[in-house]
């Protein structure tokens, strides 16, 4: 297994280098002179020259890249123009908020998606299967920012059950934190639940056709035992892999969800950075999510090998 992880890490290196090239190239997309954008109103030639020297913009582009990546490898992703904080520090500060939102969303998605998928596969071709499929497709089609707005309208404005905003860190007030995050987590979890439901259904349908399921039934085992202990256990392999790969969707969904529910997380950081032309933060976020995504892919592969004994010796 260690050799496998080592090999996968080696394969990941060129991809990470390419991601860094893309992220660096992003700033070259900026129309006009980036120094003018940084200087804002101040068009003093001395200031402009100082900024050019400071950011090494007079150097050839490849030299600029090696300077930038050298700093990034030392954990220096630049300074936020808006808050004057190091970008990495800013990301580390906001990340726990988004992780709390993502974990809660994933729990909700698993609680809805997996049982719905199992039931839909078990009742294939019946009205239960039909409704579950329609609900899942609707979950995939609904824009989560609209679902968030509608939930605020219904749950907060009309019924007054849950607050629409006012995030509290979990460490300060766990109960209030869960209360404020429940609705955003549900909104974020909906599309993930729909994806999980479809994958669970498809995995269960293929497992339910297997010989060992027929054997388990022939032995006279209770249907619940056959379904949970024999079928679901084997169908879990692709489900776990898919769940790990949904990380990207969770992060992207968090951008909009945090914006609607004014949650001060990673997603809100990227939107604020975009509007404040805080390009170092935008670059830092894309670089970090890209690298994190590669590691989640690696984790999915490792999980797949652990759960599937046939893969272990390959």
């Amino acid at each position, binding site marked *: 297994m260690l050799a496998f992880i080592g090999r996968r890490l080696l394969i990941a290196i*060129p*991809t*990470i280098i*390419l*991601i860094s*090239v*893309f992220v660096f190239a*992003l*700033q070259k*997309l*900026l*129309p006009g002179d980036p120094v003018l954008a940084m200087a804002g109103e101040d068009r003093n030639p001395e200031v402009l020259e100082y900024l050019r020297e400071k950011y090494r913009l007079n150097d050839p582009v490849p030299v600029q890249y090696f300077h930038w990546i050298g700093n990034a490898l030392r954990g220096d992703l630049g300074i936020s123009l808006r808050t004057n904080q190091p970008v990495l520090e800013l990301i580390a500060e906001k990340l726990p908020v988004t992780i709390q939102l993502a974990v809660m969303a994933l729990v909700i998605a698993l609680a809805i998606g997996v049982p719905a998928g199992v039931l839909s596969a078990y009742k294939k071709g019946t009205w239960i299967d039909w409704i579950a499929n329609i609900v899942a*497709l*609707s979950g*995939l*089609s*609904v*824009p989560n*920012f*609209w679902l968030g*707005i*509608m939930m*605020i*309208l219904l749950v907060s*404005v009309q019924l007054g059950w849950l607050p629409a905003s006012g995030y509290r860190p979990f460490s300060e007030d766990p109960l209030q934190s869960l209360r404020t995050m429940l609705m955003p987590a549900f909104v974020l979890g909906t599309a993930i639940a729909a994806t999980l439901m479809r994958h669970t259904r498809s995995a269960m349908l293929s497992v339910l056709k297997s010989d060992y399921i027929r054997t388990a039934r022939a032995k006279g085992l209770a249907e619940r035992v056959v379904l949970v202990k024999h079928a679901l256990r084997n169908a879990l392999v692709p489900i776990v892999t898919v769940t790990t790969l949904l990380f*990207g*969707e969770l*992060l*992207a*969904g968090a*951008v*909009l969800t945090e*914006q*609607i529910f004014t949650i001060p997380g990673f997603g809100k950081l*990227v*939107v604020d*950075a*975009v*509007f404040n032309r805080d*390009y170092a933060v*935008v*670059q830092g*976020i*894309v670089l970090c*999510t*890209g*690298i994190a*995504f*590669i590691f989640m892919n690696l984790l999915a592969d490792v999980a797949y090998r652990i759960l599937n004994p046939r893969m272990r010796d390959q």
Partner: protein
Amino acid sequence: MTAITDPAATLPKKQSRIWRKLRANPAALIGGAVVIFFVAVALLAPVLPIPAPTATDWAAVRQAPSAAHMFGTDEIGRDVLSRMVWGAQASLLAGVVSVAIAVCLGVPLGVAAGYLGGWTDAAISRMTEALLAAPFLILAIALAAFLGPSLTNAMIAIGLSAMPIFIRLARAQTMSVMTEDYVESARAVGLKTGALVGRYILPNIFPPILVQATLTIATAIIAEASLSFLGLGQQPPAPSWGSMLNIAKNFLEQAPWMALYPGAAIFLVVLGFNLLGDGLRDALDPRDH
């Protein structure tokens, strides 16, 4: 010696079978009807008897739905229905154009990777993996931010972000088609690369690309609405469903209809494309033949 059947000759028969299967799928038909309805609305916008989407009426600010304004009015008295009808143009255009960008860039790259193999394949595949590593919307937001906020730039950003899916799909399909007997024999008789790709590879990889394109239009419409919602897509006063929702969220208590209808339109059109895409996938699935 077994005669090699030209796949192009069996195409009309195959098409009628696909059409028959599609017609037998009510969900796909509903999806298709929803898509046709929205396309018709978007195209007929200039001739429909509705007020101009930017015409303000200060005497009718945030009016609830009525006979005069079927979907109510917004915060400066503009007709919500009219803005939705014109917004359909922006949303559908963004969906189609961004997917066209993704297909036009992604398919040639994917075919090149699959056909040429070796270093070309390795280079294109690594680039695709790197692009796929950034979540679709985060990449689109970053690109839109650096390119500047506008509908055109949003379409470019979404198109570039969706491109890797088509590279991967075209590469895999090309590699699979390359192992077919008819490609082998076409190569054996000395058919040039261009003719081989145009006559045998592209027509055979087209069905899965079409399914993916239909499903990606749904994703692209949501992405455009998301970017416009964040202020990175269509710029005011031009209407778009996403930007209408961005404004509507500030008037939820006073004018909920401002949020209800544009969001429902996005949901319906995306559902339509998803149903149609699923139906096309089932109809084109060779395992069912």
